[in-house]
């Protein structure tokens, strides 16, 4: 069955369709679509650089581009982990009644899970600085 290329948000080919109401989703989607094309030649070149040393100087720049493109994916993955682990209390758009019941009846809070995506981004940025300063395989 052919994949439907449109839904209530518009056509999939319209890359601006999320911009009006979900800017975070827009950034995630654009970076993801660029990444699925970029990551294949990047992966091939990264493996090739292990066998051909003249490719090694380029791996830093190519990895920096990959690093930037995969940042939204990593953030969303960490955010999804927090969302699922906290049963929706972290980053979930839940009704106030459900949140109240979840906290009072089940003693759940999302407090421990909310910092996870931001900690992941801080560590990721620190790694990017290390890449710019010291990258070598």
């Amino acid at each position: 069955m052919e994949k439907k290329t449109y839904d209530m948000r518009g056509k999939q080919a319209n890359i601006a369709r999320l911009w009006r109401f979900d800017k975070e989703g827009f950034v995630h989607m654009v970076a993801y679509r660029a990444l699925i094309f970029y990551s294949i030649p990047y992966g091939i070149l990264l493996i090739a650089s292990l066998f051909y040393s003249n490719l090694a100087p380029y791996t830093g720049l190519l990895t920096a581009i990959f690093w930037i493109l995969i940042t939204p994916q990593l953030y969303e993955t960490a955010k999804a982990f927090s969302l699922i682990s906290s049963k929706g209390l972290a980053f979930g758009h839940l009704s106030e009644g459900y949140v109240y019941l979840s906290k009072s009846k089940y003693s759940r809070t999302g407090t421990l899970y909310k910092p996870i995506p931001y900690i992941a981004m801080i560590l990721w940025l620190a790694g990017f600085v290390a890449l710019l300063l010291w990258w070598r395989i």
Partner: protein
Amino acid sequence: MSAFKSMAFFYGALAAVPIMLWMIAITSPYPQFHLLRVAFAALSGAGAILFGLIGFNEVFHG
């Protein structure tokens, strides 16, 4: 998209490849970790290719 493909895509590439690249970056100043970086680079390259192939299939073929 099958369940296996979804798991391989999300956990294998989305988490493992960035983590391995991060490990390469932070161990770069230390020559004693060269072999570890080579291993991570090989696995990251394979993971990036897998990510691209499955992602391309998922976006354009559902």
